[in-house]
């Protein structure tokens, strides 16, 4: 199992009363609350932590989120470019430029090809569907987002792998009359592709395409269901079985010298859930296109209608809209987060056991995306966590080799 360290570079330094009064801590919080001097320090610290991961033998992962206290990584390609130049050994996963939000996938492919060449073939390209507050922040129609996502991926893939002169693209969502990027990517036909999704329908498409499938903070049940949808779709399409190398899981992880130190680190990571997910109803539960209209009775009501019985439609179908998942996550404490497989923390032995326990529950995975810093965690605490994990846990995970279960 490979470990990919990440920090979303949150900006927690907004007074709590401001956050409490705002209906959203993303998209609409005025940016005068973001002090560029503090932001510069955060960039310095986290980029140094990425470089430490490189020294310590961990891979690195750069996400993209826009316009909120949860992340200052709105411009993913800039981080990928810096990491491509400044790291030496680590593989670099962009997870990723939010492709359905950008008007020109060809430009994204150009950025990725550049980073792949700069890093001499250490780039991995991940795709995230996006949604919620990202839609207004990026002026994107939330309806049709998924269709746009797949067409963007198709165009990026062709742009990266086509080397015989200009081709044209006249798709439903994107048109480009003359595609011929320089440089072409270092890795042929293109860097490995990843996709993050929890819903079984998208998971099936990820499976058919043979992408590395990432689940983010979904817990064992949702993760297992998505992995199974991935495998089942491949089997139904007559495609060969894939190993655990095709699966990844993203969770909060902090290893300390003692159980207490590990838990203290873990608790700081939960800031992400408790504070940074708050978003306005028009950007979450009422955002068109986010969940099938059939789920409106569960999503729209603030209280059940008189005489209603619990509706388990979502649970049975395995579909929980991202907004509902977010509401569930916002109130979690350390013990709950650990019990739900969202947080692995404690001593290195304990963290290793928790990860492998989760591994067994979901049928195995080959990549751990480790959210190692969040909220008010200091640079020093983050550095300590990286060193502890990379020296005491990662080597043991590396012994867990890819297998084809069953």
């Amino acid at each position: 199992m490979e470990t990919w360290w990440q920090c979303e570079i949150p900006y927690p330094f907004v007074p709590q009363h401001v956050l409490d009064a705002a209906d959203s801590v993303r998209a609409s919080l005025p940016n005068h609350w973001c002090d560029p001097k503090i932001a510069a320090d955060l960039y310095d610290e986290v980029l140094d932590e990425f470089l430490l991961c490189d020294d310590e033998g961990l891979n690195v992962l750069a996400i993209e989120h826009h316009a909120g206290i949860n992340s200052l990584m709105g411009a993913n390609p800039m981080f990928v470019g810096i990491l491509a130049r400044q790291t030496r050994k680590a593989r670099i996963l962009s997870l990723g430029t939010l492709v359905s939000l950008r008007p020109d996938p060809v430009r994204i492919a150009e950025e990725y090809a550049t980073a792949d060449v700069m890093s001499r073939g250490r780039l991995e390209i991940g795709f995230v569907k996006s949604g919620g507050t990202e839609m207004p922040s990026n002026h994107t129609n939330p309806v049709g987002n998924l269709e746009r996502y797949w067409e963007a991926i198709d165009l990026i893939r062709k742009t990266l792998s086509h080397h015989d002169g200009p081709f044209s693209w006249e798709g439903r969502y994107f048109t480009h009359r003359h595609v011929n990027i320089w440089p072409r990517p270092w890795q042929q036909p293109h860097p490995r592709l990843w996709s993050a999704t929890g819903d079984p329908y998208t998971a099936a498409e990820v499976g058919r395409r043979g992408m590395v499938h990432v689940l983010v903070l979904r817990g064992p049940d949702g993760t297992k269901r998505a992995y199974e949808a991935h495998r089942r779709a491949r089997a139904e399409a007559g495609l060969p079985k894939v190993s655990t190398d095709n699966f990844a899981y993203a969770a909060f992880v902090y290893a300390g010298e003692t159980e207490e130190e590990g838990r203290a680190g873990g608790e700081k990571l939960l800031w992400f859930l408790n504070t940074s997910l708050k978003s306005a109803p028009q950007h979450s539960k009422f955002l068109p296109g986010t969940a099938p209209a059939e789920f409106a009775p569960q999503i729209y009501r603030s209280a059940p209608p008189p005489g209603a019985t619990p509706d388990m439609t979502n649970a049975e179908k395995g579909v929980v809209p991202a907004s509902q998942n977010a509401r569930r996550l916002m109130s979690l404490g350390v013990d709950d987060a650990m019990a739900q497989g969202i947080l692995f923390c404690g001593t290195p032995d304990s963290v290793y056991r928790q990860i492998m326990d989760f591994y067994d529950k979901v049928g195995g995975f080959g990549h751990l995306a480790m959210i190692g810093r969040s909220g008010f965690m200091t640079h020093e605490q983050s550095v300590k966590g990286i060193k502890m994990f990379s020296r005491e846990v990662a080597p043991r995970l590396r012994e867990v080799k890819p297998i084809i279960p069953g």
Partner: protein
Amino acid sequence: MPDDPTPNRLTVEDTALDVVRRGTGRPILALHGLQSADPGAPWVDLLSRHHEIIAPSHPGFGDSKRPDDFDTVYDLVHLYLALLESLPHEKVVLLGFSFGGWLAAEMAAACCHRIDKLILVAPFGLKLGDRESRDILDIFNAHPDTVRAAEWHDPDRFAPDFNTMTDAALVRYARDRDALCLYGFQPYMYNPQLKRWLARINVPTLVLWGASDRIVTPEYGRAYASLIPGARFTVIDAAGHHPEIEQSDRFAGHVSSFIARGKQ
């Protein structure tokens, strides 16, 4: 009328539309706004006493299926121009509300020969303000409480209550929002070219507006009407974006008397 056997489907160019049909008399084709056609709306009963009401739900709204490749206002305008051609009536009164008012204005600007008279109720469709002033409240990017206050003169009485709506009504409401967002997102609820072509409209036109409408204001309405040759502009008091709901009697009265005016 409840036992009216009129079928509730209407097929145009292979697209099946859910339709509310009621009454007899000089026909009115009614194009709905934010929400799909409502067979229980009082204004339908009022106007159907003297008119044949034909009120389809646009593809993607209500129970009307949306063909996969059908996702623009262009598609809707051509669909309804085709519907006009396919109706047995030589001419119909074209009545459009809000988003449907935009469609009606586009249709009339394109071709008026099957249109008897045009009635626009708080229509979308134009960009009138400067580039930093939004004309039409972005209902997908404003807090629901803000939208509620802007949409209704008396929200406590008329705004939908999600907690008491049936499951089926909520699903329909969500489908309507999805479809509206698909069609009207970019640019938000207007066609930058339409303003130039409104002068082509050559049928009697009435523009109605709720005095309390803050989704799109009466001032916008007055400017809209001034771009259509000879159009009358009338404000209905104590009504927001849906005068046909909040003041259905007065709304129906304005519509009836406008249709009855003149030789036709």
